């Protein structure tokens, strides 16, 4: 599973009772009421544990975290930067 699919699966399981309900990869979590600020904290904990990356305060912005697509791009970029392998199998 790639990062985008993995994040999508986490969001659907965690915030939508397992039903994707038309969730697009570019749906804004906040604008569409899918994830609130507490949910973002939950997402960040998941990303840090799953991908073993450290997410800094200044990175906690909608550009990085407000849709599945943005989250995947952000994590891919971080992993490229630290040259870490993801802690999941493909």
């Amino acid at each position, binding site marked *: 599973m790639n990062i985008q699919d993995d994040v999508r699966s986490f969001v659907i399981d965690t915030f939508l009772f397992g039903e994707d309900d038309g969730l697009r990869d570019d749906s804004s979590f*906040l604008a569409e*009421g899918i994830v*609130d*600020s*507490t949910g*973002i*904290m*939950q997402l*960040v*904990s998941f990303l840090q544990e799953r991908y073993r990356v450290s997410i800094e*305060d*200044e990175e*906690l*912005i*909608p550009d990085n*975290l407000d849709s599945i697509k943005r989250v995947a791009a952000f994590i891919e970029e971080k992993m490229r930067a630290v040259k870490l392998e993801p802690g999941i199998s493909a």
Partner: protein
Amino acid sequence: MTTTGLFSSQLLLVDPEREVARICRSMRELMLNQVKRRGVVIGLSGGIDSSVTAALAVAALGRERVLGLEMPERHSAEETERFSGMLATSLGITTVKEDISGILESVGFYRRYSEAARQVVPAYGEAWKSKIVTSDVMDHPGFTVFYLVAQTPEGGITRQRLPLKPYLEIVAATNFKQRIRKMLEYYHADRLHYGVAGTPNRLEYDQGFFVKLGDGAADIKPIAHLYKSQVYQLAEFLGIPREIRERKPTTDTYSLAQGQDEFYFSLPYAKMDLCLFGKNNGVPASQVASALGLTPEQVESVFKNIDVKRATTRYLHLAPLLVDSIDLQHDHGQ
């Protein structure tokens, strides 16, 4: 509303005499016809909101129908009791003091709080003091970030970002304070056949700055429609002691002193009032910004933050939800 003239704090000025009379009329009518209780219990914190609420209750119902409750615990600010006592004396109301430290100990509050804090500050002990603060929406216009600021018994300060689990555990434990206080308010209300007056101002009510079934619970909320600066205007008219009026608003919830604007609101109350008023009345961010000495982008951030808080705290205002509606025939027998 259109604001073709200058947008400024002048727009929040009220006629205190008229407003007090209007609130008092409404309180008497609501107590008589809906709450159907002959007096009110009010938790006194020594802050401006509970002081004004108590003064309004005295003006509306008479001082013999108002009971003030002082409910300190071991982390309460030292001045809390002094100010609440000062208020009670100036109003001439009866007060009861209930120290809630023992109840908090019984439900494990202090232990639970320390255990949660140790998840981010491993050396944290009960002799330490701490508070939660949030990222500044002006400097960090992203998602809200919560930090635990902890102080060692020697006075050293550390600040750690809170992951979700310890954050929720700290908030859940701390909510015991508001809920225990409300439980005691209702105990005294029940024994006197009184109602309970809640003390939120408009900023708190609008943006959900209260604990459900804690300080959010009440039978009547006489100042929920008033912006905080309007509460101060009424306070002066009602003769609330100057020291209380000049006290900086705090939550008096955590063991370290915590300003409301470092935990919940993005700005000090006077600016937050104008931002909320501007947003509620369709005033462009640029106009609000020039009145407050902020940039339009900063005001846009505050506007967005208001929307987020309203959305995330909406459930706090909801009564329990039913699958099918039930007609309670409110008019039956009236």
